[in-house]
């Protein structure tokens, strides 16, 4: 009986089914089938043969991966760039949000916001082109130009040709591109802080600096925690486009991260199995990190993702 009503219901809801099932099928093909493709990490994949007819090699590719010295270099770069971007991104965005909140003129505030959001919407290709320009050694390169003028350097520096500058350049570029945009969520959180708290603080004799420190900042704490969790889950996602576009052979020791590593071995060298093993490593660690961070947040009694 129960079975019949279920089928009856399905028949009744055939329009809803027609509106969703094709997309679920699409989802299975485009999002779930690639997971099945992880099998090739355990094979010696050669194009042209069916997946299950490939030669199985067990964990060989993972062994190679963990024995490969360049893998550790790549991991170092990934984590370093991730952490630099995370720290710089958080600190600058929180600071800017608080400063924007303190502006007295609403019009001026809106203008600053509009302008600072803009770089978020241009592509990394366009942004990289601008960055290359700003860092160039000819006299139109503003960075070298200013440093020369102030007298900090004697001759122009080839910023993008030396690995030791790469992480810094990347961090600053990320800040330039996303600083304004990253403040939106903090500004939204600030509007939810009860004005009575500010009044109470004022009556207690707190000056402006103290109100920022003891009212605004604690008000932002839940948002900061949840964003930290999100970002910890993305620790291995150090970005891909800026490294690809701004990096070059000379800086590869610093610019190559996990994504570029996968791209190099997989697409450029055709070693699909090895690249898949590296990609799989990344996804698995990311999911573990995300759940781990979520668990910690729950333990701490903080808002969490799921």
């Amino acid at each position, binding site marked *: 009986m129960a079975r019949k009503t279920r089928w009856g219901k399905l028949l009744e809801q055939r*329009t809803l089914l027609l509106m969703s099932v094709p997309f679920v099928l699409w989802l299975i093909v485009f999002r779930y089938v690639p997971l099945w493709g992880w099998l090739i990490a355990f094979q010696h994949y050669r194009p042209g043969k069916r997946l299950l007819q490939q030669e199985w090699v067990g964990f060989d590719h993972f062994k190679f991966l963990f024995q490969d010295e360049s893998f550790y270099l790549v991991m170092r770069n990934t984590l370093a760039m991730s952490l630099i971007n995370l720290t710089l991104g958080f600190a600058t965005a929180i600071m800017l949000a608080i400063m924007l909140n303190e502006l007295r003129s609403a019009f001026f505030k809106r203008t600053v916001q509009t302008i600072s959001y803009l770089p978020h919407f241009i592509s990394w290709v366009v942004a990289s082109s601008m960055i290359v320009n700003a860092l160039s050694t000819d006299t139109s390169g503003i960075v070298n130009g200013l440093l020369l003028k102030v007298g900090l350097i004697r001759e122009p520096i080839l910023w993008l040709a030396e690995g030791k500058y790469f992480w810094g350049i990347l961090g600053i570029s990320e800040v330039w591109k996303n600083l304004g945009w990253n403040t939106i969520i903090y500004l939204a959180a600030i509007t939810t802080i009860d004005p009575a708290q500010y009044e109470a603080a004022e009556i207690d004799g707190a000056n402006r600096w103290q109100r920022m420190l003891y009212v605004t900042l604690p008000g932002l704490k839940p948002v900061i925690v949840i964003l930290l969790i999100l970002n910890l889950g993305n620790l291995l996602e150090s970005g891909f486009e800026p490294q690809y576009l701004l990096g070059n052979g000379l800086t590869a020791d610093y610019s190559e991260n996990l*994504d570029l590593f996968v791209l190099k071995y997989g697409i450029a060298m055709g070693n699909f199995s090895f690249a*898949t093993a590296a990609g799989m490593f990344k996804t698995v660690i990311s999911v573990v990190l995300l759940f781990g961070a979520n668990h910690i947040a729950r333990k701490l009694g903080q808002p969490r993702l799921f």
Partner: protein
Amino acid sequence: MKTSARYRTTGDRLFDMFNVVCMLMLMAVTLYPFLNMLAISLNDAMDASRGGIFLKPRIFTWYNYEYTLREAAIYHSMLISVLRTLVGTVVTVFCSAMVAYTVSRPEFVLRKLVNVSFILTMYFSGGLIPTYLLHKELHLIGSFWVYIVPGIVGAFNVVIIRSFIEGVPEGIVESAKIDGAGDFGTFMRIVLPLCLPVLATVSLFVAVWQWNSWFDVFLYNSSHIKLSTLQYELMKILQSSGAAMTQKTAGDAFANARGQALNQVTPASIRATMTIIASVPIIVVYPFLQKYFVKGMTLGGVKG
């Protein structure tokens, strides 16, 4: 938070001044690269290679644009960019909204299943290589559809649109059904028009993403010049002008030699011009639609 004027102390005033100065500097740093690019693209290429161009062109000319836009390949890549943005946005928004509608219907038997299968994809992906092999298997390589089909429904879009639909009073949907409208009719005539604000937001994000994409072109269609996009053409120019990144510019002699060979343009001037062309649609549209962008960000933030 406003402090009334009579409480303003000297410290307050100093802080306000400091704050305003910081904001002015921020705006300058944000805008300078755009203005500098514009100035270089509007300056005589040979003259620009001498350097020293900052905010305004020294020898004004439209020649860089004339030269760039004379190239048939650039025109074609522009066409593909526009096409993928239009088709991609319409298809993605429509399909995402349709899925969002079905998972918003409380009576739908498969509601949970559909919902969870989409949400799950927000946490993992098969990764670059399996996805690449899949697209190859499906003959999407060398096809325009590789820009559209892999992204027709985004889990994130579904979540945002669904939460908006759930804010629509149930009575409106119910009365449409009582009047004899089926689910598809209700979706098309009632729900879609009511969702216009959220659809505008999602459309903008998808459109910007489509316009800015270059990696899929690089990965799947780098040997199919007919399917190249503006961003990818700019990326190729950027990569080939590696000299600007890794060598000191060799001075006038080099620039002159290259310049004459290319008839009054230099790699740098072409790059500046392409950079401006590739970013202009966004810069023009952005100020008018900014509030929708911001709304999308806060909508997404609610869900986390």
